[in-house]
């Protein structure tokens, strides 16, 4: 039996063993057993998919070419892992609380569940991972070839291409079998994780075994090995600072951003606490993986013939020494590294492709049509299986096209720089609330383009994709755009050059556009949830929905469950909620129930995602809303305060203006009143003084004269007294201090009394209709009489009719008793009619000087009595109408 056949047999047995492990783990998880599945050590070992065949074979090759520089690839992840408290803890928490299924999901969720962003990340991830998968295929075929070379005599040199096809097909089958067994709520794959953990142990053991063999077997001890290193080509530490620092950073970045790392680190994470173990265990694992790399490289360079591929020293050294068992173990280690990477990468990428590309397109294309139950689940699984096959096939295609000639490490680094482009939007999204979707898209776009142009396309070699002219003269002949010397950065290492420019432009564009653009509400909400994940959502919360979404939910459910089932479900819930019809309120309870029902058909993740798409904002807690609303509220409060203040100011100003106007008016009135009153008072006072002086100073006054002057003084005093009485009366009336003395009496008698009191007999003829005056009144008769007296006296004073006649008419109008006093004079001129009731208003020079207070007093009295006195225009003479409310009088019997 040739060693090649043994190898194939061992390989098959190993794969069967892996199948068994994965199957057993899945079974145990399904039964709820197997707490060992959730051990932090299993988690740590699953992280070891970072160490792919690139590590297993390539690290030695790397070391053989550039010495100790290879450790940068492992130092970066070590530093990230050691600093888990900074980033990984937050990533894992966000991933768990938001039920993140992939890195594309994380980035798209953070930026408002933007599917465009998810598609972009997915495409970039697929392009970045394809060479890496090719690399794994290449390593397996190369290792096969290494075994085959030992049997050239047998003439069974296998076809490299066919090996790659077999490996690719086998990997695709394994991944499909264990990666898409279920659409689990959290996308966890216990079987796969367990298999990976076993593979991690195998590859570490294999590499350590080869290392021990090389150091103690081939070299003969530690001291001899060190001497061999000192004597080899890589004896000197000749690493440039930029590459040392740059590669460390790059590997750290890639560790965070690689889709497969995200898958095992965040998605498959069972318990956040596992990070505490991984924090020291994973660096230890990496350290052990790297421990023997330099010795193997040095010994290989020393012992192997010139021209031997240093990438295969791990395999060829034992083979050379005839240690076939060790060689097969080593082969298994490499095989494990390659397969675990391809499996996890295919799962991670297929999740992204099916969730963000295939499913949205399928739902869009098939939208509207009512589907039978279970349709979507089949499509989701099929999409994922096809994606896995497609991704593995892409890797194979790349392997075929690139011819498998490139050094392993070079491909790995190209891939690393590609995925490192996720870092600015990822970290920005986790730590900066101001990061926006537009910023993320801009940054990713710029970084992706620079990576494509400066590193990925040139990696195919000159004139393959990019013409030679572009390399020499730059794009469109612009020297600054040469792919290996952007912006004149000449002489840089190509990887460092591409890393520098792509990350600089990526981060710069991301920050700048984020600063300039304004996020949508959902972005701000998600931003708050991501950045403040420790304060807001320690556990996945329930759904919250708005009323408008019930119909959308029904439409979607009909598609998945079938129309009848969905309607029954909705109607039942609506009835339970006490509502008629098919649309229940989307309460958290209902949404959870719906999600459970849907997950029976499509799997929980898809159901969650679908409901999430309709309801929006997965598990938005009140605190989250408040966190976002808080900022807005502060701004709104501030502006409304300003608004209130300005309104208040305007109101105060208006009040002040009114007060000012009133004060001015009052001041004018007061001035007018004072000048009137002083005038009114001075006239009688002047005569009193003058005549009293005459009486005092003139000795020879006749008795007649004395009596005349004394009577003048007396008259003026009486006038003065009357004026003062009137003023007092008016002031009392105006202040409402008057006490009404209500009596009952007949109107005719009241008028008789008024006519008598006015003392107008003989001076003016008064015409009355005594029949109409038979009306009983209940009011303050004295006050009413005062009004009548005033009006009659006015007629006597002002009526210039020849002979003067005053007509008094009593009647009813609009339920009021009206008493009109009309004279036959010239009346009041129209321009004066409005002012005759004002104080001190007099019309022209009067025959008998009144103070002009009479009508003012009348109006005040009538107001007190509940009636009115007004000037009646349009009569022949002056006409005043006194009106009284009808209740105050009683019809005569």
């Amino acid at each position, binding site marked *: 039996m040739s060693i090649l056949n043994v190898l194939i047999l061992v390989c098959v047995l190993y794969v069967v063993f892996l199948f068994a492990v994965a199957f057993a783990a899945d079974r145990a998880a399904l039964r709820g057993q197997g707490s060992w599945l959730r051990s932090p050590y299993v988690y740590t070992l699953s992280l070891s998919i970072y160490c792919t065949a690139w590590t297993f074979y390539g690290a030695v090759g790397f070391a053989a070419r550039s010495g100790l520089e290879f450790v940068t690839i492992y130092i970066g992840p070590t530093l990230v892992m*050691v*600093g888990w408290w900074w980033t990984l803890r937050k990533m894992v928490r966000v991933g768990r609380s938001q039920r993140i299924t992939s890195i594309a999901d994380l980035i798209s969720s953070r930026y408002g569940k933007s599917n465009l962003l998810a598609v972009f990340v997915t495409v970039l991830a697929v392009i970045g991972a394809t060479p890496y998968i090719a690399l794994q295929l290449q390593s397996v075929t190369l290792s096969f070839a290494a075994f085959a070379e030992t049997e050239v005599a047998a003439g069974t040199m296998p076809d490299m291409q066919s090996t790659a096809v077999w490996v690719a097909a086998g990997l695709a089958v394994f991944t499909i079998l264990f990666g898409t067994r279920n659409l689990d709520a959290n996308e966890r794959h216990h079987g796969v994780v367990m298999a990976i953990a076993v593979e991690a142990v195998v590859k570490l053991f294999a590499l350590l075994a080869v290392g021990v063999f090389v150091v103690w077997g081939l070299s003969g001890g530690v001291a001899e090995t060190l001497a061999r*290193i000192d004597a080899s080509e890589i*004896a000197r530490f000749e690493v440039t600072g930029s590459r040392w*620092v740059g590669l460390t950073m790059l590997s750290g970045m890639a560790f965070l951003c690689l889709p497969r790392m995200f898958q095992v680190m965040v998605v498959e994470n069972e318990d956040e606490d596992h990070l505490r173990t991984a924090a020291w265990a994973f660096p*230890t694992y990496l350290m052990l993986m790297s421990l023997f790399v*330099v010795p193997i490289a040095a010994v290989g360079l020393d012992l192997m013939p010139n021209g031997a591929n240093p990438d295969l020293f791990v395999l060829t050294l034992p083979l050379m020494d005839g240690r076939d068992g060790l060689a097969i173990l080593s082969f298994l280690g490499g095989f494990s590294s390659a397969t675990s990477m391809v499996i996890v990468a295919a799962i991670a990428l297929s999740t992204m492709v099916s969730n963000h590309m295939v499913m949205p397109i399928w739902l869009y294309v098939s939208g509207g049509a009512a589907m039978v139950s279970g349709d979507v689940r089949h499509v989701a699984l099929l999409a994922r299986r096809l994606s896995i096959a497609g991704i593995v096939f892409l890797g194979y295609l790349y392997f075929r096209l690139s011819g498998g000639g490139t050094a392993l490490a070079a491909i790995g680094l190209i891939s690393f720089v590609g995925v490192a482009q996720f870092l600015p939007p990822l970290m920005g999204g986790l730590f900066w609330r101001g990061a926006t979707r537009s910023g993320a898209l801009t940054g990713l776009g710029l970084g992706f383009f620079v990576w494509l142009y400066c590193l990925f396309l040139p990696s195919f070699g000159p004139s393959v994709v990019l013409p030679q002219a572009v390399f020499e003269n730059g794009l469109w002949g612009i020297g600054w755009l040469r792919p290996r010397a952007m912006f004149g950065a000449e002489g840089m290492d190509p990887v460092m050059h591409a890393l520098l420019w792509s990350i600089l432009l990526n981060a710069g564009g991301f920050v700048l556009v984020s600063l300039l653009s304004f996020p949508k509400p959902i972005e701000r909400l998600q931003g708050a949830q991501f950045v403040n994940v*420790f304060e807001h959502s*320690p556990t996945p919360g329930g759904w919250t929905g708005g009323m408008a979404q019930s119909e959308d939910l029904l439409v979607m459910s009909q598609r998945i469950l079938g129309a009848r089932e969905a309607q029954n479900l909705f109607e039942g819930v609506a009835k339970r909620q006490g509502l008629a019809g098919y649309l229940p309120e989307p309460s958290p309870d209902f949404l959870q129930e719906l999600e459970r029902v849907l997950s029976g058909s499509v799997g929980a993740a898809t159901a969650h995602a679908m409901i999430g798409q309709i309801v929006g904002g997965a598990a938005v807690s009140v605190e989250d809303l408040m966190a976002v609303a808080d900022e807005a509220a502060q701004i709104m409060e501030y502006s409304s305060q300003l608004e209130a203040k300005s309104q208040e100011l305007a109101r105060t100003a208006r009040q002040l203006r009114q007060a000012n106007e009133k004060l001015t008016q009052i001041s004018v009135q007061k001035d007018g009143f004072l000048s009137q009153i002083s005038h009114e008072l001075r006239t009688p006072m002047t005569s009193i003084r003058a005549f009293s002086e005459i009486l005092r100073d003139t000795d020879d006054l006749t008795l007649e004269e004395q009596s005349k002057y004394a009577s003048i003084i007396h008259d003026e005093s009486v006038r003065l007294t009357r004026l003062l009485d009137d003023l007092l009366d008016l002031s009392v009336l105006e202040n409402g201090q008057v006490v009404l003395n209500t009596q009952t009496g007949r109107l005719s008698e009241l008028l008789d009394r008024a006519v008598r009191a006015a003392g107008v007999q003989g001076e003016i003829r008064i015409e009355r209709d005594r029949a109409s005056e038979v009306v009983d009144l209940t009011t303050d008769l004295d006050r009413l009489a005062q009004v009548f007296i005033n009006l009659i006296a006015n007629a006597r004073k002002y009526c210039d009719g020849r002979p003067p006649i005053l007509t008094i008419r009593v009647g009813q109008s609009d339920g009021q008793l009206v008493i009109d006093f009309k004279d036959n004079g010239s009346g009041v001129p129209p321009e004066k009619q409005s002012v005759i009731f004002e104080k001190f208003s007099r019309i022209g020079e009067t025959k008998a000087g009144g103070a002009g207070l009479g009508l003012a007093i009348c109006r005040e009295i009538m107001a007190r009595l509940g009636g009115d006195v007004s000037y009646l225009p349009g009569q022949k003479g002056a006409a005043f109408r006194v009106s009284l409310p009808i209740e105050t009088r009683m019809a005569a019997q």
Partner: protein
Amino acid sequence: MSPERGPVFLARRTYRRRRLGDAARLLPIVGALLVCIPLLWRNGSEASRTTDVMFYIFGLWIALAVLAGAISRYLRPSETEDGSRDPGDI
């Protein structure tokens, strides 16, 4: 935007935990600086020996793993949530 701050003085235990958090944050930074130290080494006119750097790097690696293990052992994130505030918090 932090409307409510934690208490000014903390129980000794919580205080310890936060200092452990500080240490956990500091560790990768110190590690990164120490990783760069070999770049400064010169052995006369030639570069330093690979074996020397190798001993240094692997020694550092083990030290980092041990320190990370020691810190992580006592740093329980699930104890209380207030320990996970911004780095600026005391």
